[in-house]
């Protein structure tokens, strides 16, 4: 009988204690953000969509090799000074945002952007093309200089948030050619 009464007492008091805690939270300011209107500050290391700055890229293929899911397609032509890259594409269908490519890149061309919100109607549009096939990018340093590309060596620098923030966003990138995904088995 004592146990019975104690059970009832405990049930009521513990419920009231719990209600005190939840009640306190009602008057506290909520911790959530109103997402599209309020956004949190992204850290400099944030792993957003991968971008490649073709001004810096020398087409060394290291990123494509290190990628565990083979989501980077690079196509080049020629040899030595006449080596041109006519395709650099990242297939975000496959990308797992592991960041191995950005670590591997010797020129800091391949970087994570701070871009994370994309909603698309067609998954084929998730293959981003960074090089216009009509205007192949020279891979060799001297040729790039001749053609007026940006060649400043980025000496072992950490990812620069400013540059990443100013990186081309989805809207600025060239549209993927129709059937891009099918042709994408680099």
């Amino acid at each position, binding site marked *: 009988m004592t146990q019975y009464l104690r*059970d009832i007492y*405990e*049930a009521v008091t*513990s*419920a009231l*204690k*719990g209600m005190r*805690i*939840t009640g306190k939270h009602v008057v506290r300011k909520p*911790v959530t953000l109103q997402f599209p209107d309020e956004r949190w500050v992204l*850290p*400099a*290391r*944030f*792993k957003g969509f991968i971008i490649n700055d073709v001004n810096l890229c020398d087409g060394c293929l290291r990123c494509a090799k*290190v990628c*565990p899911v083979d989501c980077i397609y690079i196509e080049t032509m020629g040899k030595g000074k006449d080596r041109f890259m006519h395709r650099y594409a990242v297939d975000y269908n496959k990308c*797992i*945002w*592991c*960041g*191995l490519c950005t*670590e*591997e890149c010797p020129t800091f061309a391949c970087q*994570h952007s701070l871009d994370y919100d994309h909603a698309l109607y067609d998954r084929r549009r998730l293959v981003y093309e960074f090089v216009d096939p009509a205007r192949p990018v020279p891979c060799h340093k001297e040729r790039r200089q001749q053609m007026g590309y940006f060649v400043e060596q980025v000496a072992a620098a950490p990812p620069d948030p400013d540059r990443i923030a100013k990186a081309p966003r989805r809207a600025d990138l060239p549209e993927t050619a129709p059937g891009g995904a099918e042709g994408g088995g680099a």
Partner: protein
Amino acid sequence: MSETATGRGWGAQDVRRELHSELLEINMGPQHPATHGVLRLLVHTDGEIVQGVTAHIGYLHRCAEKIAEGCDWRQWMVYTDRFDYLAPINMNFGYAVAVERMLGVKVPERAEHIRVICAELQRIASHLIAIGTFGLDMGAWTPLLYCFREREEILNILERISGGRMLYNYFDIGGLRYDAYEGFERDVLDFVNIMEQKIPEYDTLLSYNKIFIERTADVGVIDVATCHAYGCTGPVLRGAGVPFDCRKDDPYSIYDRFEFDIPYGEGEQGTVGDCWDRYMVRMREMYESCRIIRQAVDALPGGPVKAEELKKLVKVPQGSLYTRTESSKGEIGYHIFADGGSKPFRTKVRSPSFSNLHVIEKVGPGMMLSDLVATIGSLDIVLGEIDR
């Protein structure tokens, strides 16, 4: 029939014989709110009483072990993230330790300390989810949201240090990918201070709530013999009253330098090894993790975070090694066979949830349907880790 079965003493057995009644076969999952992922439980019930449970797994199988044979040693770290997606750092830790032991690499001190801090933060995050979803299985929504609020703080710290919010890929073989950011220590200590204040709040709201105790005490009792038979580790084994923890009993990294206790189930509210004990072990482990983090932050040295002697392409000498570490769910073991090449010859992952889950077949029969949900919740399984 067990004690909880309402049929006891009512002649239910006789009635059933006369009625020629059948057991109800019911699929709990793969799409069911209480199965924590894509687990399918085939449950045979007699009214509210469960008569048999079979766990069907494999819905999240991604061939991670086979993929390892095509990846180089560093690449596979990415896949270890995806085993237990609620505690990826702990999964990374095990793999990193395993490969480093095979290589005989000495990890720099600073990296070791940051590793421990991150791993313990991750353990708290994982336990927060375990506690929150366990509460949710009991019908208490609010603790879940409070737990997520605190977990968010952890994720913010880990995001700042690694760039990822869920899958970090932060550990590298021989160290860490990046050094800690400026102000990391302060962030961590701020969080620990908050966390230690929040735990009593959870206790009042959930742990010592009478309804919660009634729902969890004496329910789903897993004793030591069953744990040994099924290979249960982690909070399940500790809940059964065995203070076994790889961090203490088979120390890896620098865990032997820290002072912490191993909480274990004592049957405070009911039998030793019931759901409440398992739950409470997690709650107390969060305190202990906070203690470890404080010590690690105090002792955090400067210096490099990557072993200098390691090349970009790691080649592990021929041989095999089983390495176990303590993840938030239990003992995560990596059995690695190397043939001297740049890729693993074969990897085998011993995942804690896999062993912990199958206890349900032993303890399930005889309990009520609601208790089955409670027991699964208290095992804290993650299907990514079970199926791999």
